[in-house]
């Protein structure tokens, strides 16, 4: 089941690389975070780790529902461009994405040999980090870039829950706090833009 979820995580990320609509992108991001939250719940259940269960629930609440909802609201309020065409042509992306994946899988091979359990998760989370960087690179508009940043956060979170069996509670909540802070700052940036125009 965990394998299935982790596959779904990568799959949603890759589909979001090809998306040309903002709301579609938000949907894929939200599904991506949903799989992440479910993953945290499953692993937390397996390890019997209360902290991870809590972070899983918080992830689902904030990242799956909260952030896409806020971003959608923002986009309606400030009239974002909703058609977001990737700058990298699909032909190249088709070659680039497998290349990135192969590269990261081989890059992380020595690491995966060192960690006994969950060894392929690290490879997948490193590659999803690179894919979210690609997502940021291939768009010129600001909204997809924000989503790229958020999915990078997701990739880090995935690494945190799989490679280390969960980070200390304090750190995880700090990360959530920072995420919310990021949203607040974005909101302010957009608001100011509005006030000027």
């Amino acid at each position, binding site marked *: 089941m965990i394998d299935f979820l982790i596959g779904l995580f990568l799959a949603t990320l890759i589909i979001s690389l090809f998306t040309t609509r903002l709301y579609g992108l938000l949907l894929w991001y939200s599904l991506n975070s949903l799989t992440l939250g479910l993953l945290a719940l499953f692993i937390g259940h397996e390890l019997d780790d209360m902290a991870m269960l809590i972070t899983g629930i918080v992830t689902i609440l904030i990242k799956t529902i909260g952030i896409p909802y806020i971003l959608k609201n923002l986009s309606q309020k400030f009239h974002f461009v909703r058609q977001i065409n990737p700058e990298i042509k699909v032909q190249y992306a088709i070659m680039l994405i497998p290349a990135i994946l192969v590269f990261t899988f081989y890059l992380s091979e020595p690491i995966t040999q060192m960690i006994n359990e969950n060894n392929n998760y690290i490879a997948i989370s490193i590659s999803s980090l690179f894919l979210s960087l690609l997502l940021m690179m291939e768009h010129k508009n600001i909204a997809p870039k924000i989503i790229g940043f958020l999915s990078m956060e997701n990739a880090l979170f995935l690494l945190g829950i799989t490679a280390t069996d969960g980070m*200390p509670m*304090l750190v995880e909540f700090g*990360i959530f706090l920072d995420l919310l*802070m990021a949203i607040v*700052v974005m909101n302010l*940036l957009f608001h*100011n*833009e509005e006030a000027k125009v």
Partner: protein
Amino acid sequence: MMLFLLLLPALIMFVMSLYKNDKAKRILSFTSFAILLPMIKLFLLPKPYHIWGDYLIADGLNTYILLVSSIVGIGVTLALLTLDKHVKVSPNAYRRFYRFFAIFWIGLMFSILSNNMGIYWIGLELATLSTVYMIKTNHSSSAHKEAWNYMIVGAIAISLVLFGIILIYASAKPILGEDAMSFNLLLAHAKDIKSPFLFEIGFAIVSVGMFVKMGFFPMNLWLANIERASFYPVAALFSGILESAVIVGFFRFSKIAMEVNYDHLFIFIFTYTLLTIFIVSFLIFRAKDFMRLFSLSGIEHMALIALFWVSGGTFAALLHFGAHAFLKPALFLSTGVLESNGKYKIAGALKGYKGKKGTMFWFLVSLFLLAIISLPPSPMFFSELYGFGAMIAIAKKSDHLLAMIGAILFLLILLSVIFYRFVAIYQSMKYEGEKNEKRVYPSELFSLVIFALSLMALLLPITFDYLKGIS
């Protein structure tokens, strides 16, 4: 209690920024001095002193860095008093600037004092996000663009740091459990880490993230562009406080990496910094305005500090760091006076000062300018001597002495390119261009005097002893 005292000036600033009162900011410049009291106390206390359990620990290194950044903070608060005299800024934005400055300061204080990788990261992220808004205070389209730019690139850099931290944590968790986040325990058990490759990859990613944040090799110009688009105090905060928080993290991580595998660390940092200085020196040669010039030279000095630190020249790195952290904010703050229109043109910037204040101002600025290229009385001169000495000493142990001497000669050539450019710029500031009258306000002069005094204090024997005591 100690923590509260340290955070008090920033908290006062935060609360004051909520009141719509113009007089409020005058109080701030006095309250910010209050941070010096707990600082002195920290210096007197036996080290390491646990401020908050195992999470925040003050030892020799971060007490020194905290002192340096606090002085910068005081200087910036003083200079902020007259920000509206030099640039156009609405009262609302002004207050918001203060509010985010307070958050920034709190975040970095946590970062500098932290003994925990996670808290270090959280503080850094908090500071990064609050900077975004400080950049945005300037109501120009370029500032808006650069604020987004900073948001995105800074977030990438910060995420890379977190990524590396997770990998390091994963590498040390089998032996340390949840305590694998603490710097001091990691340092003590660095030799026992079972998977050094994992640690090294984590360290490499952390340092690339930090290097991006400090503007090293591939990202040379992004900081310069941002500092140019935002108000000048932001640049001072960057070079004085933010970079000190980043560099303290670098110090701590590389200290652990030295234990794990010194050769890999040295070669990695050595090539990276050399490449950075190579590119930056020629960028400086082409620089056409103050902001770009100063921020590029900041990159150069940061690269030198990192290089000295990994070569084992702890003292040199710390001295260089202190000197840079005092000089660069002073210069950035003075740019507000040198060219008030935000164009930062070089020619004629040092002309047109009247009265005692004016004379003193240009005298101090020219001293700073000459000190930043490490002319002898400046602490940078000594630190570079010690630093190159440390590099030679480290090469003597291996059989690459000739290569190291070659590298140092190469570095000196690059530094002389920078030296030449700065001298040319100084002459152009003094003797070219037209004469525009410029006003100097007492608070600015006062902050410059503070920086000058602390710079001199760096040269005292007692400081030398303290810095040499930090291992």
